[in-house]
């Protein structure tokens, strides 16, 4: 291995990535339209309700019904959108804080998702989580099969 080539390659990597970040500004955060469009591609059969979007526009919950009850978890990765589905029989840990809900689940590239929510959205999110997992209804920090 040529160490000089490796050094210059590493420098080139940093410079090119920096140039990209300056030349291509990140897309706007999550919007209802982006969430629904991306989730429709991810889970085409799901019937979507209105998304519950985090105030920082970095994450959202999308309650869905039919053919299965499912909860869409949508996150913004830079300018891209990442979708996941939580089904009733999947293990997840929800932590309910003051206007925030944190999801921890067994996903190696998405171990934690945080939702910062307005009062109304917090109530809607809690209801959606409860609907998917009745045993977790009034739990402030518990592991639930969600």
């Amino acid at each position: 291995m040529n160490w000089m080539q490796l050094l210059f390659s590493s420098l080139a990597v940093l410079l090119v990535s920096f140039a990209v970040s300056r030349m291509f500004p990140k897309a706007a955060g999550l919007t209802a339209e982006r969430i629904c469009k991306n989730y429709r591609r991810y889970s085409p059969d799901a019937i979507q309700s209105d998304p519950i979007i985090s105030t920082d526009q970095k994450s959202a919950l999308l309650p869905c019904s039919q053919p299965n009850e499912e909860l869409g978890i949508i996150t913004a990765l830079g300018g891209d959108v990442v979708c996941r589905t939580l089904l009733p029989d999947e293990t997840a840990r929800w932590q309910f804080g003051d206007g925030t809900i944190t999801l921890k689940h067994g996903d190696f590239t998405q171990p934690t998702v945080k939702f910062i929510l307005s009062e109304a959205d917090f109530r809607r999110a809690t209801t959606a989580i409860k609907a998917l997992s009745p045993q977790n209804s009034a739990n402030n920090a518990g592991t639930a099969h969600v």
Partner: protein
Amino acid sequence: MFDFSLPSNALQLLKPLDIAIPFFIIFMLIELTYGWKTRRIRYEGKDTLTSLTMSIGTTIAGALTAGIVLTAAYWVWENFRIFENLGSSIPIFILAFVLEDFTYYWIHRSGHRIRWLWAAHVIHHSSQHYNLSTALRQTWTDVFTPKFLFFWPLFLLGIEPAIVFFCAGLNLIYQFWFHTEAIDKCPRWFEALFNTPSHHRVHHAKNPQYLDANYAGVFIIWDKMFGTFVPEDKNEPCNYGLVHDLDTFNPLRVATHEWVGIVKDIWSAKGLKNKILFLVGPPGWTPDGSRMTSDMLRASWQKRQETAAKTATTSAPAE
């Protein structure tokens, strides 16, 4: 005993990839500038940083494992080759290039159909972007897969490993240029024979109808011969990335996520058969069908298309 050294008369050839690296950077800068001016190409700073960091990791992993791979290759060639004196003439290089590309097709196809190989190859597909930096997003963990065995028939035939790996380097260089949205279609004769940006966009797309298609390296004819060719449909724009996209730019997590998934699945699987199938079955396979393989995704898409067509027919007004 197994001797970890190459024969003294082993052919010394240039490493094409080493020479190509500066040109990769130059072409990327040209594509970047074009994308910036026209907004026809999507780039993302962190995504590019991840892709290029992966390429540095690939170089290091390759350097660390090259000795073992080369020694094993020369051991097979020296002890078991059928034709003794194929030599290193130009016709042999051409033959090696074509056979290596044929081998690449099967490696690549297996890389999508066998989870053990997919665990290494998935890295290349883990970006939601399709640009020249994606071409450099390569695996660090090839050495943990049985990929090297695919080349052994070439050594058994009598082609010297140095020639095969030289051709493999040329093949990878060829594959760099078509990771772009800047080029729409090439001349028809070229599209018919060679892999092009249009063919490879389909390969990187996660749209159900595009899954597991166009595995070719240089010659697209292999896909046409073995029934895996799917042309790009202008009415179905490519949506790049994985069916389950990664939610991280961390190169370590990108490099290892599928391996972690395999270990978890094997650990929790009941019975030896299921444990083995989690390794050698197709990505997405589970004993209870709770996850979707690409075949299942395509079948589900086809069913939706048929249902939509039926609905359209029944709801069409009578003339």
